[in-house]
């Protein structure tokens, strides 16, 4: 998501599942939707059958999505920036870009500082010693009022468009083919198909998933795709967009609610340790417009923040104490992400850990490190409906988990919780829809809901603090707890709270009452910074109004026949279904094309088949930009200081690469891998070399399994009972492996054993003068449950993450294959 927000303003799927049917071209890259999202993928088939759409798949494997594609091109894992960067250059050099869209809706015309530059793989400001950038030069040039300078002719040598053009000009077809291993004719074919969507009445949608995020350059891969869609004018349009297909049923919701080390609900963020001044904290996040008169919606940050503090701390949060600003934990590290946490845990710096429905032993890279880290904990709490490998990390399972139980001093609690079928509540799907569901039966045995477990622990701690005193307790003792049964907060109560309500009458600028005290707020526009409203998650405001729970709505009618079921469930923000939909219309407010129309200006206001993602009364003459969360109002080709490793994407090799250097910068070792990535010493020592581990490996899912859960289900165990790996025919022949042989796959960090599937679906690639073979390794199976016992795949994977998000590089690493 860290690639989308710096480009468009929000880190979420821009369109939605059903809208895929409106696409003319579907590019699936960095994902395998037919397999991982099979039912959502039906809308791709719908587009093919009823909208004459074409499907392109670019992937290391000829996967199940490729099997129904119109065109497939192979690519070496981890080289997508080169592939897409070459495409961007091709579009610009052959003048196949959407000029009017680019000029009006992107930052192409903005002028960048004179001292900004890029040389031999590094942007200006690199500090090689610390592996960090000083981003001072990554800015626009501003006038005296703080507005960015522009050149609408796009000819100024330092305007974003020209800098981008020069930056990507190095990605010629020959270079790209050599980096990616994609044959030139296939490359060209894909590029031409994509270029054809530059016209007003054709759109391409891009579907991606973890195949893009799980790289050390993952965020920048996604940004390259986002830039591509801006150049083609495919954002905000029906059948367009950059669609992040989330991996789990409520990852979107947990991210929206800020369950990441540095976040608060609604994409607000915790203060850093040196942000001691409340007003400075707010000012830093209330981003002002960088072009005159833009919406720049984050300017209202304080309204959302104060409303959150009122929801959490009630009457204790006052203007006088800066709404309890000091009570919020402040960060001494940029991220306390999981790689950072397990590094610290392995050094004994963490004593307790709680895993709620999460199985890190199976899900995190480098299992041996995870085991060593968990073994140093004093206590581990696992809250789960199922047995997990994590809860039993101390148990010896022979070759699959060979630990010395007696030496592991961790106290482990295993708490049974309800599964989805046994609780009420809502989840957010990839399309940002909040869908409510109901409990159908009681849970087995003594299992109770997560909310009751959390409340049970919290209320006991609270009582201990009342009885015994202890470390700083103002925040925990004053936490607002307005639940009828304190030990069991209900889903309804919690949902009403994150929607929010008025504590006092809320008035507009004309002193009209817009929301009476005690009423639920109808939308985030009603939230105030004066303490008169409470809302636990401002982007969810509107999901539970005075009319009741909007998430239970089940009107599936589609009155415009375009796939927008506005009466089904509720979508954040403000029930908008296609983000940035103002961009579906020309600057004058008329649709670019009737068949792509979403919203348009009717002379008085914005109307259409969706809720406008735009101020409804902002006339086209006001010329406000469609990307309302961005300070420029525009889509950002230039990420400014929002990305760790540079304002433009650049190809860097995976940390374990099957070739000797980065072909883009063969003579600069600093630019071989992502120069902004954080690598811990013990992890670097555990990287393998291509001399010892010659094959590029990548992990993936199967349609019959979900992670390490469905191996506990009989039906799924029957469908896919045993661990296998995929090996291309050529390599298998070289190694004397035939279909059905057992093989050992080893990396620097350990080995697994599995059945070999010898396949034509993975072909050898010619990369930088070398033949590279790729190995496909499904993530599924383990040593618990109903399937045949197997090693965990993450025994093999390296512990290094994307420079921005620290998402581990599960998709590109090195292995060796031996016949057993």
């Amino acid at each position, binding site marked *: 998501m860290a690639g989308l927000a710096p480009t468009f303003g929000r880190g979420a799927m821009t369109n939605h599942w059903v809208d895929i049917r409106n696409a003319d071209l579907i590019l699936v890259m960095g994902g395998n939707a037919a397999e991982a999202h099979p039912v959502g993928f039906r809308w791709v088939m719908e587009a093919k059958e009823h909208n004459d759409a074409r499907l392109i798949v670019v992937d290391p494997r000829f996967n199940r999505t490729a099997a129904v594609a119109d065109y497939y091109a192979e690519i070496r894992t981890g080289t997508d920036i080169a592939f897409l960067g070459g495409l961007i250059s091709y579009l610009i050099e052959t003048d196949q870009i959407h000029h009017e869209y680019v000029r009006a809706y992107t930052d192409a015309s903005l002028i960048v500082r004179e001292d900004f530059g890029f040389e031999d793989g590094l942007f200006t400001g690199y500090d090689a010693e610390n592996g960090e950038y000083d981003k001072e030069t990554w800015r626009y040039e501003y006038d005296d009022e703080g507005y960015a300078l522009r050149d609408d002719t796009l000819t100024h040598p330092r305007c974003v468009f020209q800098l981008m053009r020069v930056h990507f000009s190095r990605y010629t077809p020959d270079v790209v083919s050599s980096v990616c291993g994609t044959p030139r004719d296939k490359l060209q074919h894909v590029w031409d198909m994509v270029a054809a969507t530059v016209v007003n009445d054709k759109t391409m949608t891009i579907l991606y998933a973890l195949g893009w995020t799980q790289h050390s350059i993952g965020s920048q891969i996604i940004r390259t795709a986002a830039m591509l869609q801006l150049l083609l004018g495919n954002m905000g349009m029906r059948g367009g967009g950059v669609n992040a297909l989330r991996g789990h049923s409520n990852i979107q919701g947990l991210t929206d609610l800020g369950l990441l080390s540095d976040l608060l609900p609604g994409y607000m963020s915790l203060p850093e340790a040196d942000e001691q001044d409340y007003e400075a904290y707010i000012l830093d996040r209330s981003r002002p417009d960088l072009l005159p008169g833009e919406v720049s919606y984050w300017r209202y940050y304080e309204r959302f923040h104060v409303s959150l503090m009122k929801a959490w701390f009630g009457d204790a949060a006052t203007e006088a104490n800066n709404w309890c600003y000091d009570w919020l934990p*402040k960060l001494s590290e940029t991220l306390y992400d999981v790689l950072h946490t397990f590094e610290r845990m392995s050094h004994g*710096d963490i004593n307790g850990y709680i895993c709620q429905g999460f199985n890190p032993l199976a899900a995190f890279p480098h299992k041996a490190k995870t085991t060593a880290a968990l073994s140093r904990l004093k206590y581990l709490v696992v809250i789960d409906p199922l047995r997990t490998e994590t809860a039993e990390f101390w148990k010896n399972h022979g070759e699959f988990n060979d630990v010395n139980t007696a030496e592991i001093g961790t106290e482990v609690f295993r708490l*049974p919780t309800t599964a989805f079928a046994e609780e009420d509540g809502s989840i957010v799907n990839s399309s940002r829809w909040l869908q409510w569901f109901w409990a159908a039966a009681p849970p087995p045995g003594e299992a109770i809901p*997560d909310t009751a477990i959390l409340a049970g622990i919290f209320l006991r701690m609270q009582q201990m603090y009342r009885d015994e005193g202890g470390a700083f307790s103002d925040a925990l003792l004053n936490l607002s707890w307005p639940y009828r049964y304190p030990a069991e907060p209900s889903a309804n109560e919690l949902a009403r709270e994150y929607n929010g309500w008025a504590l006092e009458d809320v008035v507009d600028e004309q002193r009209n009452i817009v929301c009476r005290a005690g009423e639920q707020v109808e939308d985030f526009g009603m939230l105030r910074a004066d303490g008169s409203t409470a809302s636990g*998650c401002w982007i969810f405001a509107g999901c539970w109004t005075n009319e009741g729970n909007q998430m239970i709505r089940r009107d599936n009618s589609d009155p415009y026949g375009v796939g927008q079921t506005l009466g089904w469930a509720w979508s954040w923000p403000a029930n908008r279904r296609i983000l940035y939909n103002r961009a579906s219309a020309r600057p004058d407010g008329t649709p670019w094309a009737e068949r792509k129309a979403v919203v348009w200006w009717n002379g008085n206001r914005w109307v259409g088949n969706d809720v406008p993602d735009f101020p409804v009364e902002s006339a086209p003459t006001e010329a406000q930009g469609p990307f309302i969360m961005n300070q420029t109002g525009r889509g950002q080709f230039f990420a400014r200081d929002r990305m760790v490793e540079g304002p433009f994407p650049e190809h860097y090799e995976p940390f374990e690469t099957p070739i000797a250097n980065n072909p883009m910068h063969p003579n600069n070792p600093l630019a071989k891998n992502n120069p902004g990535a954080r690598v811990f010493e013990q992890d670097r020592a555990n990287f393998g070399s291509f001399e010892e581990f010659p094959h590029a490996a990548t992990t993936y899912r199967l349609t019959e399994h979900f992670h390490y859960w469905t191996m506990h289900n009989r039906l799924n165990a029957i469908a896919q009972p045993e661990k296998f790996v995929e090996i291309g025919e050529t390599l298998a022949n070289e190694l004397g492996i035939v279909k059905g042989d057992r093989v050992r796959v080893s990396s620097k960090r350990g080995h697994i054993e599995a059945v070999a599937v010898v396949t034509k679906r993975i072909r050898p690639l010619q990369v930088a003068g070398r033949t590279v073979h790729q190995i496909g390794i499904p993530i599924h199976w383990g040593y618990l449950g109903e399937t045949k016992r197997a090693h965990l795949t993450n025994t093999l994977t390296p512990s290094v993450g994307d420079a921005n998000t620290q998402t581990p590089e599960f998709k590109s690493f090195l292995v060796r294959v031996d016949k057993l």
Partner: protein
Amino acid sequence: MTLKVTRRQFFKLGAVGMATSSMAMMGFAPEPALASIRQFKLTGAKITRSNCTYCSVGCGVLLYSRGDGAINSIDSIYHVEGDPDHPVSRGSLCPKGAGLLDYIQSESRLKYPQVREPGTDEWKRISWDDALTRIARHMKDDRDANFVDQDAEGNTVNHWTTTGMLAASASTNETAYLTQKIVRSLGMVVLDNQARV
């Protein structure tokens, strides 16, 4: 194998025409029924609307459970199928969703709170109160010992970094919101969810 057909079914089959006539010619004559027609399995089930818990498509599912509504009867889910009204899934389920019943009823479902004491090789069943109290005690002791109110530069940080949490990817928004609220009130900053990986 003998094919037993009741008189009533025989006449219904008759509507099909030729095939039935030829069956009669082959000697299948109606016999008196010894039992009634088997009831449709889902008759009388309670239908609960839900969503699949696996990927992010959010397919609508219908959970069929039975219990007769009496005060001491317990509902049990015995059938799961796609929700035909759902605008995305329109009644479809993939192989994962089709196996949801086996997840709900999996042998691996946990039923009781348990503890593994340090160095031992077994799970011990304990009561909820014991489990939650022991966990709260561990957390408070660790928090009291390691809470940082001011950092070395004298900044007020009020954070706790020696106990961390991973939040669930399939839990509800309501669980997630309560988790966030509690965790931050304790000053915890080591918090992530599946979106990180």
